């Protein structure tokens, strides 16, 4: 066959391979998704898009401001790391997202479905309203009947399509013998349709087709807003989960094989490179290094590790490569067991009933009883089923739960949108209401108030010769303390000393030769003796010993956040698992008087319980596994995006950027939102007090019903939009 092709057209033989290449290129072309927590304006969009498009190998980049993400279509040579660096260079924080996770690429199906139903309901209600206006303004006899019939023909298919979400919810609630908001809504819609059709066949005067459609339209609008807020929060929360590394390097017969963490077994040998997180619990059998346990225990300073040391999943390997033998994997690791304990514990959010839920609990039975009473009363009074049914339908329509169904989602959407713009992701629907009542804020130290980046202290007390030797040695290591020392010394323009034979001893430090002398920078005890318990690094030049001490760098906005909270009259407390001195130092810098050091995870949650027993409403801000119990116990909780997975799951709000300063304004927004929701309930109650007696007395006409319903819906929506 190939010869036949050749004879017919020589070029064709080349064509398939060209297609193959194209196909392979298409497979190798990658779609990268970046999360951009700090973008907020049109200048950001064009800056980011220009920077990404200018990057070699990038075919197309598009920013989505609503989701704060960029989709990049790039050649295989481009890695997300490069793009993150490119964006960091122009001042935008970026994180890579796992493109395999469905939430990152899938479009929002349920949202579109609701939008479509909303559009159809809107279209139908406008047309029917147009016909109804003619009827209200005096169309009579045959014309009125014609208009009613046309309305019926538009209304029935529309309701059958658009009101399905209400019917489904109502049915699933009734199946388990419960009442929810959708039951009275469904009853109102169906009863309005039945009585209106009955009236129309008898050439009656009153038909509620427009009311049934307007009701569906308004409530769908509320439902759509609600869905949109939650969809954005959910996808962003899943994005953060996508940041976790799902792979490990398993060693089989001396070869390293990349394996999903889920496929690891007890007894497997696992290679953990410097900078990587332990995928399993295990024991070190080869290699020396240091471990960062801050996410698990809150300790800032690295812990030495050598063969025989037990490690837990979640710890970070800092300096040397390690070989582990797994002793517990997957759900059995201590990380997961602790996370499970948190999941079992009763959380602040499950104890709380939202304002809307407590209102709905009064509303649903109230409406049913009211309209049943109206029906029975009128039937006994007039022995006329038609009138009685008509009035019962009017009562149901007039009491439409627009304030509940539209105003609450409108307020939460406005407030959550506002917080999202400032880089806060509201994960839980009642989080705002709980946040509004907060009067005490408890902070964790490491990773929350501090950035987890150590800074060298007192460099000006050390002579220049020692500093230049220290810089030369520090440059040779990737250890966080060395790197921070390197940065600080370069900023001071210290020249590095001309050392030779520089070697790094993982777990100990770096060593080199200078003018025939051995110089060492590293752990106290190895590099030289230490006076203050070995909390920093020690430099030895022959017999001379110099000590470097480190303190944790403050997270940006920490000072402003604490000051603003205290100025607002909120009690601020600090609870940390770190050493006494480090915590006292930080508390003094931030002017926090109420602080506790060396707290175990249990102590943290006990402290919060004690505060709650004293009548306080507590907001917990924390990031580590040792905080998760406290995050769960608190009334409401916030964790930064850098927090451990378990901590983010336990918290209600996630800070997307590195900055803590939005926390005080979140409290203000939450208070304003809750005030607005209560106001809306009052408006709705007032309107019901006026309109319901009219309906029960049989004075409500379809015109009055339409006016009353629209007025109340529009009033509460406008009131929600006032939120600034």
């Amino acid at each position: 066959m190939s010869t036949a092709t050749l004879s017919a057209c020589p070029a064709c033989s080349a064509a398939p391979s060209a297609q193959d290449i194209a196909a392979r290129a298409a497979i190798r072309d990658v779609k990268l998704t970046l999360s951009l927590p700090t973008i907020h304006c049109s200048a950001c969009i064009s800056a980011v898009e220009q920077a990404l498009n200018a990057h070699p190998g990038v075919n197309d980049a598009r920013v989505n401001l609503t989701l704060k993400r960029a989709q990049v279509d790039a050649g295989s040579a481009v890695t997300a790391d490069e793009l993150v660096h490119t964006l960091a260079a122009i001042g935008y924080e970026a994180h890579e997202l796992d493109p395999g996770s469905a939430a990152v690429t899938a479009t929002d199906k349920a949202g579109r479905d609701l939008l479509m139903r909303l559009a159809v309901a809107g279209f139908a209600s406008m047309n029917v309203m147009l016909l109804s206006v003619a009827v209200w303004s005096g169309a009579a006899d045959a014309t009125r009947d014609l208009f009613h019939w046309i309305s019926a023909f538009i209304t029935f298919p529309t309701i059958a399509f658009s009101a399905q979400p209400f019917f489904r919810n109502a049915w699933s609630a009734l199946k388990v013998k419960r009442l929810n908001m959708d039951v009275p809504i469904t009853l109102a819609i169906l009863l309005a349709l039945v009585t209106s059709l009955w009236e129309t066949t008898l050439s009656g005067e009153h038909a509620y087709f427009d009311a049934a459609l307007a009701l569906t339209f308004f409530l769908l609008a509320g439902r759509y807003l609600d869905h949109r807020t939650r969809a954005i929060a959910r996808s962003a929360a899943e994005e953060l989960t996508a940041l976790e590394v799902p792979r490990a390097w398993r060693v089989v017969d001396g070869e390293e094989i990349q394996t999903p963490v889920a496929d690891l077994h007890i007894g497997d040998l696992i290679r953990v490179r410097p900078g990587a997180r332990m995928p399993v619990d295990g024991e070190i059998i080869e290699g020396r290094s240091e471990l960062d346990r801050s996410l698990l225990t809150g300790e800032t300073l690295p812990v030495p590790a050598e063969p025989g040391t037990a490690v837990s999943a979640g710890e970070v390997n800092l300096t040397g490569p390690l070989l582990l033998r797994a002793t517990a994997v997957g759900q059995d690791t201590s990380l997961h067991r602790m996370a499970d304990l948190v999941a079992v514990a009763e959380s602040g959010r499950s104890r709380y009933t939202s304002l809307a839920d407590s209102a709905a609990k009064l509303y649903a039975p109230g409406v049913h009883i009211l309209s049943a009473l109206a029906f029975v009363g009128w039937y006994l009074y007039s022995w006329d089923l038609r009138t009685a049914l008509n009035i019962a339908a009017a009562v149901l329509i007039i009491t439409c739960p627009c304030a509940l169904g539209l105003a609450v989602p409108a307020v939460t959407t406005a407030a959550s949108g506002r917080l999202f713009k400032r880089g806060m992701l509201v994960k839980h629907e009642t989080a705002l209401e709980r946040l509004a009542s907060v009067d005490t804020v408890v902070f964790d130290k490491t990773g929350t108030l501090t950035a987890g980046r150590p800074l060298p202290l007192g460099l000006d007390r050390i002579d220049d010769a020692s500093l230049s030797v220290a810089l030369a040695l520090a440059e040779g290591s990737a250890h966080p303390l060395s790197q921070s020392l390197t940065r600080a010394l370069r900023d001071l323009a210290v020249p590095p000393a001309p050392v030779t034979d520089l070697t790094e001893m993982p777990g100990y430090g770096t060593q080199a030769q200078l003018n025939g002398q051995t110089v060492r920078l590293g752990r106290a005890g190895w590099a030289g003796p230490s006076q203050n318990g070995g909390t920093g690094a020690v430099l030895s030049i022959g017999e001379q010993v110099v000590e470097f001490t480190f303190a944790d760098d403050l997270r940006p906005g920490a000072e402003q956040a604490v000051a603003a909270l205290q100025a607002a009259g909120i009690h601020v407390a600090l609870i940390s698992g770190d050493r006494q001195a480090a915590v006292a130092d930080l508390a003094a810098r931030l002017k926090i008087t109420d602080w506790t050091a060396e707290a175990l995870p249990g102590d943290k949650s006990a402290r919060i319980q004690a505060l709650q027993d004293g009548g306080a409403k507590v907001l917990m801000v924390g990031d580590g596994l040792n905080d998760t119990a406290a995050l769960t116990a608190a009334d409401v909780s916030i964790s930064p995006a850098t927090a451990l997975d378990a901590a983010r799951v336990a918290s209600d709000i996630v800070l997307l950027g590195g900055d803590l300063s939005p926390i005080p304004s979140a409290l203000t927004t939450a208070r304003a939102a809750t005030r607005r929701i209560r106001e809306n309930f009052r408006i709705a109650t007032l309107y019901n007090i006026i309109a319901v007696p009219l309906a029960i007395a049989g004075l409500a006409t379809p015109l009055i019903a339409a006016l009353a319903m629209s007025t109340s819906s529009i009033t509460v929506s406008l009131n929600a939009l006032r939120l600034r």
Partner: protein
Amino acid sequence: MDVLVWLIPISLFLGAVGLIGFIYTVKSNQYDDPEGDSQRILSKEWDDHPKP
């Protein structure tokens, strides 16, 4: 009143045109980034000719 015979179908037809237009915009992902679209108007990029 004879004019109603024309006007009612016309009004329904115009409404349907709007509805179909809306369904088209939903299907072609035009509501995926409302925030970004409102900001992109202010950008000077692609003012002279549409993005190729």
